[in-house]
C-alpha cells in the first residue's frame, strides 16, 4: 500500500538537501574547522507495549566538548522519535525534513503514520544523499499496528528492523554487554535498566560520549522523558 505522495517527488526534494555542515563553532581547540560531531552512544530497545530509547549528551568538536547537555533524542511526531549520531548539522537537518514530510503524510493518511514509514523517509534521505551526509540514525516509536518498533539506519542508508539497536562511537564498547544481557519480552523496568547500564558503560570507555543519560519511554499513551544526571550514572569497574 503506497502512500499518496509520489516517491519521485520526494526524491527530487530530498536530493536537493544541501550538505549542511555547520560553520566552524566557537570551540577553543586548534581544530577550528573540525565539524561538530555527536560522536556518541545511542540505543533503542523495544519492549512489550512500546520502546525505550536512550543517548548520552556530549557533542564534541575535535577534543573540545562543545555541548555537554545535548539532546540527541529528537521527536518526529507524538509517538515516534529518532536517536542521532554522526554530524550534528546533518542529523538535525534530516530530522527536520522527516518531521515535515511525516506530518504532511499524516494529514493525507488521516491517521498517525507507522514507525515503518518514518524509518523509510529517513532511509530515502540518508541513501540518496549518502555521499554528502554523515548520519547514523535509530528511528524508534510506537504505532497501533505494530506496537513498539526499532529501525536502524546506519551510514550508507540501509534500513533494518531490529528488536534492539545500538549506535554511535560508544556502541562498539557495549556490543558484548548488550548481546549477553538482552532478553526477549523484557518488562519496562528491565528495559530501562538495560538501556541505562549499557549507555553508562559506553560513556565510561568512549571519549566522545559523556554527560547525562537521556532516556525516553514511548508507549501508546505518549512519551515520558527521563534524565540521569552525572552523579547518578551507574559506575562499574574503574581500576583500583
Amino acid at each position: 500500500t503506497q502512500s499518496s505522495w509520489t516517491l519521485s517527488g520526494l526524491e527530487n526534494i530530498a536530493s536537493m538537501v544541501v550538505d549542511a555542515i555547520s560553520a566552524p563553532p566557537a570551540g577553543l581547540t586548534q581544530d577550528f574547522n573540525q565539524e561538530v560531531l555527536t560522536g556518541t552512544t545511542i540505543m533503542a530497545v523495544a519492549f512489550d507495549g512500546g520502546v525505550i530509547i536512550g543517548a548520552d549528551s556530549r557533542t564534541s568538536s575535535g577534543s573540545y566538548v562543545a555541548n555537554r547537555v545535548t539532546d540527541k533524542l529528537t521527536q518526529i511526531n507524538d509517538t515516534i522519535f529518532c536517536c542521532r549520531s554522526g554530524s550534528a548539522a546533518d542529523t538535525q537537518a534530516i530530522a527536520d525534513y522527516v518531521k515535515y514530510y511525516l506530518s504532511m503524510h499524516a494529514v493525507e493518511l488521516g491517521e498517525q503514520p507507522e514507525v515503518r514509514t518514518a524509518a523509510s523517509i529517513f532511509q530515502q534521505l540518508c541513501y540518496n544523499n549518502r555521499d554528502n551526509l554523515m548520519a547514523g540514525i535509530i528511528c524508534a516509536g510506537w504505532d497501533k499496528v505494530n506496537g513498539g518498533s526499532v529501525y536502524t539506519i546506519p551510514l550508507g542508508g540501509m534500513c533494518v528492523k531490529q528488536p534492539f539497536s545500538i549506535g554511535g562511537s560508544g556502541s562498539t564498547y557495549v556490543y558484548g554487554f548488550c548481546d549477553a544481557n538482552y532478553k526477549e519480552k523484557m518488562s519496562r523496568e528491565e528495559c530501562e535498566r538495560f538501556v541505562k547500564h549499557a549507555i553508562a558503560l559506553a560513556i565510561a570507555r568512549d571519549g566522545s560520549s559523556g554527560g547525562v543519560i537521556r532516556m525516553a519511554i514511548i508507549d501508546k499513551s505518549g512519551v515520558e522523558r527521563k534524565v540521569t544526571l552525572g552523579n547518578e550514572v551507574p559506575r562499574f569497574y574503574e581500576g583500583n
Partner: protein
Amino acid sequence: MSIMSYNGAAIVAMAGKDCVAIASDRRFGVQAQTVSMDFQKIFPMGERLMVGLAGLATDVQTVSERLRFKMNMYKLREERDIEPVTFMHMISNLLYEKRFGPYFCEPVIAGIDKHGKPFISSTDLIGCPMTPGNFVVAGTCSEQLYGMCEALYVPDLGPEDLFETISQSLLNAQDRDALAGWGAVVHVITKDQVITRTLKSRMD
C-alpha cells in the same frame, strides 16, 4: 590528528603562600577509547619537587624515567636534593637535546626551594622554560585550564584553599575535554610534607 592529542592529559600547577600544588587527570586513552583510569602523570623528583608530564603517553613514561636517572646521578654526585630551578634547567636541556626529533611531552614543575619559597614552571616540548609565578597548565585542555585558572586564582592562598582552587580549576576544565578526565589526583607540597588526594570526578 595531532600527536599531542593522541592520548590526552590535563596538568595544572599553582603557587600559594609557602606551598605549591600540582594536579593531573588519570586517564590513559588511545584517541577516543579509554584504556585505564589510573595512569600516573605526576612523578616525585625529590621530597619537595614534583613534575607533571602531559602529551604522548610513551614519552611521558620515557622522559620520567630519564629524569629519574638524572636525578639519582645528581643526588649521588651533589649529595643533596636538587633545587627546583636547577631541575627546570635540567628538563629544558634534556628536551632541547632532541630539538629536531623531540619528545612529545610538555612538563609542568612544582616544588619548594631550600629557602621555602614556592616555585612553579613549565616548558614546551622542546624545552623553552616559562616561570610565570601564579599558575602553569599543560595538556589537551590547556585553554580550558587557562580560563579556569585566570578566573579562580588569587595569590597567597594557604594549602587548604590552594587545594580547593586547583581542584575546581582542573575538574571543570577537564569536563570540557573529551580526552582528559576519568579521575584526578592533587598533590599539595609544603615545606614539611606532601599531601596527596585523589578526587572523585565525572568518569566520562
